[in-house]
């Protein structure tokens, strides 16, 4: 803002902000793209690869929505040691740990360097609406959801249902 003093403007430019994203009924890939952009700091004109990322808090990761049949088709594999190769479907992994899908998605979208681990430490995932008070106090901005949630038939009012013309009799 041009009305700020020089020191206040510098403080506002380099401050680390906290973003909130609600992942209810959203595809985890699109959430992960928004998270990775802000964790790297690529949304800022003063971007530099050395640490200008912000914090991102994602809530309702338990209520994520996959398009298509990905809950059954998508497989997450983990090679831990020879003979310890495990393959788990997205549905099974989500049941075991509701944060894992978003975490793996963001991890795969960040640049594959040593700064990735620090950026993942700045990502905060919560399966439901509850947030600890200190994180809630830090939040600065809420980001709009990437996907428009369609309305169920029970959410339409009777007037809207009546106003829609009958196509056949």
């Amino acid at each position: 803002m041009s009305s700020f003093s020089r020191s206040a403007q510098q403080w506002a430019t380099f401050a680390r902000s906290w973003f909130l994203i609600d992942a209810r009924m959203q595809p985890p890939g699109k959430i992960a793209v928004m998270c990775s952009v802000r964790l790297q700091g690529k949304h800022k004109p003063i971007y530099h690869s050395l640490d200008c990322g912000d914090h991102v808090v994602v809530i309702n990761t338990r209520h994520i929505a996959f398009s298509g049949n990905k809950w059954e088709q998508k497989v997450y594999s983990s090679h831990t040691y020879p003979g310890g190769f495990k393959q788990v479907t997205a549905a099974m992994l989500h049941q075991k740990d509701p944060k894992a899908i978003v975490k793996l998605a963001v991890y795969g979208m960040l640049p594959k360097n040593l700064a990735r681990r620090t950026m993942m430490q700045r990502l905060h995932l919560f399966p439901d609406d509850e947030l600890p008070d200190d994180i809630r106090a830090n939040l600065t901005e809420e980001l709009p959801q990437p996907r428009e949630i369609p309305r169920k038939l029970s959410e339409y009012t009777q007037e809207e249902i009546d106003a829609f013309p009958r196509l056949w009799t």
Partner: protein
Amino acid sequence: KSGSQVMTQICGKRMKASLGPPKKGNLVVCFSFKIEGQILDVPAGPQPPNPEAKCPIYRWNLQHKYNYTDVLLLSQFIRSDGGMLPRRITGLCPQEHRKIAICVQMAHRAGLLPDHKPKLPEGHVPKRLKPQLNRYLTRWSIKSVKPIYKAGLKWCKKRMSVGHPALKNNVRYSVKPLYIKH
């Protein structure tokens, strides 16, 4: 055409007399009831812009414009337990009937039609609690899909299908093409 009409209906039945075997000429008229009907003056709704077409979708010019989210449209072609009405009743042409059936399936799987579930018998308690997973644009039925354990490299990847190719000609107002294979 206003005014009430009283319809009478007499149901005659040849009944066995309670005493003795039926003799000739024992025709007994048992029921006679009246059904009263009234012809009401309902104001005519909006007229279709293309009344000469045979299929209702073409009559209203909605050919490539509907999707699985248009529940108000889809709910006019389904039964109360969620199944599709037959084509000879709705009057849809075969291609549009198939597209509407596909959209109805996708809407059911997305949970957009919560009141059109089939009625379960009384006192039926499901044994295992099914996981409530949100989904949308599901082409295949949930039980029939197998996990892709070996997805392959980029040039030969086994893609996961989203949406349905029958709806590929839908109107799109964005520049990005429709991705069916994710």
